[in-house]
């Protein structure tokens, strides 16, 4: 008896020892940094408490020249934030509309083809993000390849670079695989018998999709949406390159404050972004729970 207990305690001691370095590490370098974001956001340069950084985010104004030439005052960071939200939402929607059919096609292909397609979809992700974006810049330029090709077919040149469209193209390209893969993995696992049953019970192809396939694939759709939305809201660089620096996004604002060494204000923007993303994710989780798992 005594021997057995001693072996057990020894084992348990050994195991918590295995987890100890990681526990300490994650405390120091995951949790403490997040607390520091809040700490910096609510303090000034002398680390005295202040809400000024947060207020500045909501009230700072700057002059904006409208298209008709009139100059108006706008709330700088709110405008930037709404723009980030808008472009990220458009990109996510485009990813979903383009990605869902692709995921569907992949899931219905032969197993071998499926594997090849998944690998092919992932390959662009292994090209450095900065270079990918830069390559799009050279494609979309006024004298770039796209306009060259259009010229060959006899279509007038289009001006894309430096517009919001270019920024959206960049975002869609960079995060597209994150939309396809979760949807695909749900669709691929779907039980074919369910579809047969629906058909036997008199559904045509459209209603099979509407009533069976799509509702069952919702968890994949939702995780795809979060995986595209979060990085595209917080991205920087894409808008600097493809938007010619005209469309400052929230990520660019954080980077700008970091370069200017305004760490407290940078932390405040990051803090607000984090709170809003957390709220979004809680909402998504709540909606998933209601719509998908507890529907009725």
């Amino acid at each position, binding site marked *: 008896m005594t021997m057995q207990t001693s072996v057990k305690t020894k084992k348990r001691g050994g195991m918590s020892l295995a987890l100890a370095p990681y526990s300490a590490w994650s405390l120091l370098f995951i949790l403490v940094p997040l607390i520091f974001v809040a700490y910096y956001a609510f303090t000034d340069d002398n680390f005295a408490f202040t809400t000024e950084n947060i207020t500045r985010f909501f009230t700072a104004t700057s002059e904006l020249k409208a298209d008709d030439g009139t100059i108006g005052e706008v709330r700088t960071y709110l405008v930037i934030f709404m723009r980030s939200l808008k472009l990220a939402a458009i990109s996510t929607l485009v990813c979903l509309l383009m990605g869902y059919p692709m995921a569907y*096609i992949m899931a219905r292909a032969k197993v071998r083809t499926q594997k090849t397609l998944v690998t092919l979809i992932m390959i662009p992700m292994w*090209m450095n993000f900065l270079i990918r974006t*830069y390559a799009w810049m050279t494609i979309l330029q006024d004298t770039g390849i796209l306009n060259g090709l259009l010229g060959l077919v006899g279509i007038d040149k289009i001006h894309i670079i430096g517009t919001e469209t270019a920024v959206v193209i960049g975002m869609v*390209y960079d995060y*597209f695989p994150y939309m396809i893969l979760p949807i695909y993995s749900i669709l691929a696992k779907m039980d074919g018998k369910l579809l047969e049953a629906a058909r036997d019970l008199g559904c045509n192809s459209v209603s099979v999709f509407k009533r069976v396939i799509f509702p069952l694939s919702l968890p994949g759709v939702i995780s795809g949406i979060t995986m595209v939305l979060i990085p595209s809201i*917080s991205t920087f660089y894409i808008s600097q390159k493809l938007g010619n620096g005209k469309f400052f996004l929230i990520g660019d604002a954080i980077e700008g404050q970091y370069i200017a060494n305004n760490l407290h204000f940078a932390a405040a923007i990051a803090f607000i972004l984090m709170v809003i993303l957390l709220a979004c994710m809680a909402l998504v989780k709540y909606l998933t729970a209601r719509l998908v798992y507890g529907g009725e």
Partner: protein
Amino acid sequence: MKITSKLYTALIFIFLFAPILVLLVFSFNEAKSLSVFSGFSLKWYQELFHDENTLESVKNTLILAVAATVISTVMGTAAAVGIHKLKNRWYRMAVNTVTNIPMINPDIITGISMMLVFVFVGRLFGASTSLNFWTMLIAHVTFCLPYVIFQVLPKLQQMERDLTEAAMDLGCTPFRAFLKVTMPEILPGIITGAIMAFTLSLDDFVISYFTSGNDFQTLPIRIYGMTKKTVTPKMYALATIIFFVTLTLLLLNNFVESGEDKRWRELKKQRKIRLKRSEQS
């Protein structure tokens, strides 16, 4: 596949591969132009191999990636074993949640948050610049760890629990039992985790950007600097090389995984045969 499906797939892949094709083709362009191809040449590759700053940053990137991979693989594997053995549900959930944070949080927030800690601690010690190789290494280990842990954990869960117990009953110390019994079973997960950590570390820009100092520049950070000015096809040559290196790693990983699948199928087959035999006798 139907013809419309094929057409759609083709369009999607044109979209996905167009920029990569542009990079590959124009890295061999004779002229400096990035839109008109005037002739085949290897001169940008030659220039690349004479660019000492870039070579230096390649060396730095590799040093950092190897160090981050080794540390995160060892610590992450140990952590996975620890998490797997955790009895307390709450503690387990807490560890899981914390491990998920770096994967869910936007890179920019992970980067900024760590930078704030480093700067703060640096100031306590009165250092003028607190960002250097070590801060970058800490950051890279931190964002690689979850990927290692979530690769190793499922392999531990697939394993039969009794095996390590049996080894210990037969006189192994827990550590020896781990090395002799657990380790071979979870090795594929560890390798996949390590490869993921390595490629993530090689490719990371955002987190590195906020946690690096001036004295230690990695390749993505150098590329960022280069794209601020006008870019020559030299960078495309560099991108082409990196692309093929990561592609090789990816294929290697697939190879390991498919080997693993085969091993599983073999094991299952053998088990079935053995069962049949025991039934017959």
